[in-house]
C-alpha cells in the first residue's frame, strides 16, 4: 500500500528533493508541523473524496476542494474553486470557476471537471445520487462556466451541495467504473487543494503543503503549517497525554475534564475559556418512537421533555463542556431563525413538577403506587432508552435521563446495545427511546427540519425521522423551506417559525444538549487559535470531515508559529 509503511532509503530521494524541501522530510521540523487528532479512528483506508464518510482525513478540504466554503459566522457561502455562483433564473444556477486553478498534476481545472463530478452522481450508489431527482442537467457552457438546470430548485439543499461536493479531475477519473468510483482507494489523489499526501501509516497520515497552490495568489491565503500530521485517534486519555506532552497541537477529541486543564497552566486553549468552552457542532436529541404507546401521545412526549434534567447532564456528565439545547434544538449559529415568541409560548424546561402535572392532566396516573405512572388503560409503562454500548458519555447521560424521568414518575431503563444492533433497531423502529445526533451544523436549519419531519415513513428509516413522526403539514413546510432562496432570511424565518410551533406542540424529538465542536489546542508551537475573546479568528478549529469547508481550513491559514 502506501509508500509510508515501507521504509525508503534516504539516498534515493535526498538529492532530487533537496532543493524544494527545506528540511529532511524523514523527520519533520516541529515548528513547521501541525499535529492533529480526532478525525480518523484507524489506519487511513482510502483517499477517495466520494467516500466522504471514511476517506483519510484531509482528502476533502485539504487535497480535494469544493466550489464554495461556508462561513458559519457570517452565514454565507464563500467562493472557493468557484469565483461566483448565481441563480440566473429560478431553476438555473451558473457557476463561474476561478481562473488559474491547477490540479496537482499541472492540468487546469475546467468546467468539464465540475460537470463530470456532478454527473458521477448519476450512479445509483453515489451518496449524492438523489440530487438528480431535482437536477435536470449540468453543462459546461465554456471552460470556466457551469450551468445547472433544475427541475425543482431546492435552494437550501443546493447551497449545501455547493460546499460539500469535492470536485474531482475528469482527466484522471474518466472511465472509472461505478465500483471504482465508490470503492476505489484512489491511491494517488490528484486534487486542487493546498496539501498533498506525503505518507501514511497505521496510525497517521502526513500531509505536505503544496507551495504552488492556486489559493496563495487567488485568495491571498496560505495555510501556515508546512506539514500536517493527523494521528489516528487513540483513546481519549492517550490523546490527552499527548496534548500534555505537547506532542499534539490540536485535539478534536472529546476530552472529558479538559475544562480543568484549560483553567490550569498547561498551555491549552479552547474557543471559550469558560463553559461551554467549545462551539456547538450538533444537537443531541432524545428520540421517542412515536409509533408506540405512550410515545404516540404528544402530551406524554411533552411531559417527558419536561422531565429531563439536562442541566445535570451538562454539569455532571460533561463537566460543562456542552451547552443545554434550546427548546427548538436549533444550534446557536441559527439563533436568528428561532422564533422567541413561539418558544416563550410553548417552550419547555426541566420541571419535574410540571412534568408530573402534564402527565396527570393527560390521564397518566400512578394507579398501583409503585412511583411510576401507567398508561391510560392501566397497563404499565416501562420504556427502554438505548444508546450504543461503549459511548461512555452517552451512557452516563442515559442513566441520568432515566434518573430524572423517575422523579417525574416515568419509568425508563437505560440499555446499551451494541452499535450495530442499535442501528438495526433504529432503522426498523424496534425501540422506545434513543439518543441521536446525526445532523451537524450546516448552512440551513432546513437540514434539521428535514431530519425531524421527512416523509414518507418507510419500513426502514436509515438517516432521518427515526421518531417516525407523521405530519404532512410539517413536511410540506419543510419542502417549502427548501425552496426558499437562501438569501431570503425573512422567508426562511417565517417557515421556520411555523415549524417550531409544530415541533414544540408535538415534540416529535426532544432536544437535549449541543455537542461541542471539540477542539482543544496547545499553544506551545502554534498560536492564534480561534477564540471568542479578542481579535482571534472566529472559525472552528476542526479537522473533522466536512468541517474544513466550514472554517477549519481558514483556521489553518490564520495560525502563527509560537516562536515568532
Amino acid at each position, binding site marked *: 500500500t502506501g509508500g509510508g509503511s515501507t521504509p525508503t532509503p534516504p539516498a534515493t530521494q535526498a538529492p532530487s528533493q533537496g532543493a524544494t524541501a527545506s528540511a529532511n522530510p524523514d523527520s519533520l521540523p516541529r515548528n513547521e508541523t501541525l499535529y492533529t487528532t480526532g478525525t480518523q479512528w484507524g489506519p487511513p483506508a482510502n483517499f477517495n473524496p466520494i467516500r466522504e464518510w471514511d476517506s483519510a482525513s484531509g482528502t476533502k478540504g485539504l487535497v480535494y476542494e469544493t466550489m464554495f466554503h461556508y462561513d458559519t459566522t457570517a452565514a454565507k457561502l464563500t467562493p472557493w474553486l468557484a469565483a461566483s455562483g448565481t441563480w440566473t433564473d429560478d431553476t438555473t444556477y451558473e457557476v463561474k470557476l476561478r481562473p488559474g486553478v491547477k490540479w496537482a498534476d499541472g492540468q487546469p481545472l475546467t468546467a468539464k471537471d465540475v460537470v463530470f463530478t456532478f454527473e458521477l452522481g448519476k450512479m445509483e450508489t453515489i451518496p449524492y445520487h438523489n440530487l438528480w431527482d431535482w437536477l435536470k442537467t449540468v453543462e459546461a457552457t465554456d471552460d470556466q462556466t457551469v450551468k445547472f438546470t433544475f427541475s425543482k430548485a431546492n435552494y437550501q439543499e443546493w447551497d449545501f451541495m455547493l460546499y460539500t461536493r469535492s470536485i474531482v479531475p475528469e482527466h484522471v477519473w474518466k472511465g472509472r467504473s461505478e465500483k471504482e468510483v465508490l470503492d476505489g482507494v484512489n491511491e494517488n489523489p490528484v486534487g486542487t487543494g493546498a496539501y498533498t499526501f506525503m505518507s501514511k501509516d497505521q496510525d497517521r497520515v502526513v500531509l505536505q503543503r503544496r507551495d504552488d497552490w492556486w489559493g496563495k495568489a487567488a485568495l491571498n491565503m496560505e495555510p501556515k503549517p508546512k506539514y500536517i500530521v493527523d494521528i489516528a485517534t487513540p483513546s481519549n486519555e492517550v490523546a490527552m497525554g499527548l496534548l500534555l506532552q505537547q506532542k499534539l497541537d490540536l485535539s478534536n477529541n472529546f476530552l472529558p475534564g479538559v475544562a*480543568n486543564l484549560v483553567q490550569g497552566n498547561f498551555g491549552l486553549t479552547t474557543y471559550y475559556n469558560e463553559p461551554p468552552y467549545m462551539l456547538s457542532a450538533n444537537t443531541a436529541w432524545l428520540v421517542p418512537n412515536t409509533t408506540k404507546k405512550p410515545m404516540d401521545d404528544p402530551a406524554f412526549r411533552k411531559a417527558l421533555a419536561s422531565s429531563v434534567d439536562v442541566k445535570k447532564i451538562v454539569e455532571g456528565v460533561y463537566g460543562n463542556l456542552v451547552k443545554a439545547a434550546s427548546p427548538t434544538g436549533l444550534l446557536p449559529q441559527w439563533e436568528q431563525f428561532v422564533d422567541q415568541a413561539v418558544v416563550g409560548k410553548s417552550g419547555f424546561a426541566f420541571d419535574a413538577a410540571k412534568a408530573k402535572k402534564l402527565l396527570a392532566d393527560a390521564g397518566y396516573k400512578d394507579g398501583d403506587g409503585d412511583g411510576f405512572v401507567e398508561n391510560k388503560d392501566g397497563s404499565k409503562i416501562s420504556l427502554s432508552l438505548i444508546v450504543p454500548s461503549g459511548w461512555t458519555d452517552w451512557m452516563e447521560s442515559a442513566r441520568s435521563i432515566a434518573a430524572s424521568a423517575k422523579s417525574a414518575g416515568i419509568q425508563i431503563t437505560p440499555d446499551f446495545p451494541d452499535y450495530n444492533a442499535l442501528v438495526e433497531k433504529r432503522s426498523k423502529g424496534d425501540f422506545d427511546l434513543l439518543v441521536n445526533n446525526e445532523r451537524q451544523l450546516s448552512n440551513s436549519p432546513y437540514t434539521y427540519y428535514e431530519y425531524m419531519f421527512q416523509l414518507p415513513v418507510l419500513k426502514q428509516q436509515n438517516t432521518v425521522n427515526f421518531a417516525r413522526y407523521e405530519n404532512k403539514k410539517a413536511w410540506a413546510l419543510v419542502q417549502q423551506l427548501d425552496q426558499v432562496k437562501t438569501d431570503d432570511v425573512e422567508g426562511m424565518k417565517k417557515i421556520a417559525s411555523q415549524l417550531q410551533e409544530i415541533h414544540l406542540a408535538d415534540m416529535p424529538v426532544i432536544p437535549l444538549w449541543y455537542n461541542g465542536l471539540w477542539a482543544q489546542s496547545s499553544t506551545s508551537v502554534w498560536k492564534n487559535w480561534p477564540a471568542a475573546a479578542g481579535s482571534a479568528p472566529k472559525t472552528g478549529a476542526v479537522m473533522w470531515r466536512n468541517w474544513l469547508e466550514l472554517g477549519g481550513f481558514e483556521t489553518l491559514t490564520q495560525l502563527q508559529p509560537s516562536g515568532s
Partner: protein
Amino acid sequence: MTALQEAEPRERAGVRREALYFAVRNGKLLTGFAIVLAMLVLGLIGPVLIGGAPNEYGTSPMSPPSAAHWLGTTTFGQDIFLQFVHGLRSTFAVGVIGGGIAAVIGMVVGFVAGYRGGVVDEVLNMLTNVILVIPTLAVLLIINAYLGIRSVAVQGLFIGLTQWPWAARAIRAQTFSLRTREFVDLARMSGAGTWRIISREIAPNMSSYLFMTFILLFGGSILIASSLDFIGLGPTDGVSLGLMLQNASQWSALQLGLWWWFVPPGAAITAIVGALYVANVGLDEVFNPKLRET
C-alpha cells in the same frame, strides 16, 4: 517403591494434623488468606454498611480523599469508596463464578480423561488442546462483542468456559498417576462404579491440589475479567473493579490528577490476586514436605 517408602516414614504424624501444624505457621499462607479475607469481608459487608447506589452522582465531583469520601469522588461526584466496595463484590463474584465453572469443567474433563484413558482420553485431550491453543481472550473478545455481556454472572460464565483447559490437563496428569494406584483397583473390586471411584477415591487424594487449582483459576478469572472490563467488554450493569479502572482511564483520571480514582481498583485486584498466589505457594509448602523451609 523405595522413594515411596522414604516419603512416608511410618512414624510421622497424621497427614492432616501435620498439614494444619504447618499451615498455621506458614507466613505466606496466613498473609495471603488474611488479605483475601479482608477484601472479601469489605466487599461483603461494605455495601451493606455504607448503603446508597454506587453510581449515584454526588455534589462534589473530583474531590480528593477526605473524611466524607474516604477514597474521594469521580468526575461525576460518585463516591469511590462506595464503588470500590461494590466492585470488590463483583470482582469476587467473577472469581467465584469463573473460577468455579472452570474448575468444575476442568475437573470433570481431567478426571474422566485421566481415569478412563483410551479413546475417551484421546478425544478429551484433543478438545483440551484445541481450546488451549485458541487464544481465549481473543475468543472472549469476540463472544463479548457479539453477544454482549449484561451481568457479572454472564461474564464469569464465559471466562469459566474458556479458562479450564490447563486445569483439565493438570488434573488429568494427576488422575493418571493416581488411577494406577492399587487402591483404585481395590475399590473396583469392591464394586464401586467409575463415578464413585473418581469422587470418593481419587478426588480426596488430590484435594489440596484441586484447591490450589481453584485458587489459580479464581485469580485468573479476576484478571481476565478486569481486562475485558477495561477494553469495554465488561458487564453493562453494575460496578466492578475493572469497570472502575475503565471509567477512570476513559475519563482521564490520571491525566487530570485523580489518582484516587485509578489507583485503588488496580491495587485491590493486584492485592487479591497476588495474595491468592502467595497463599497458593504457602499451601504448596504445607502439603508438600519437600517445599517446606526446614
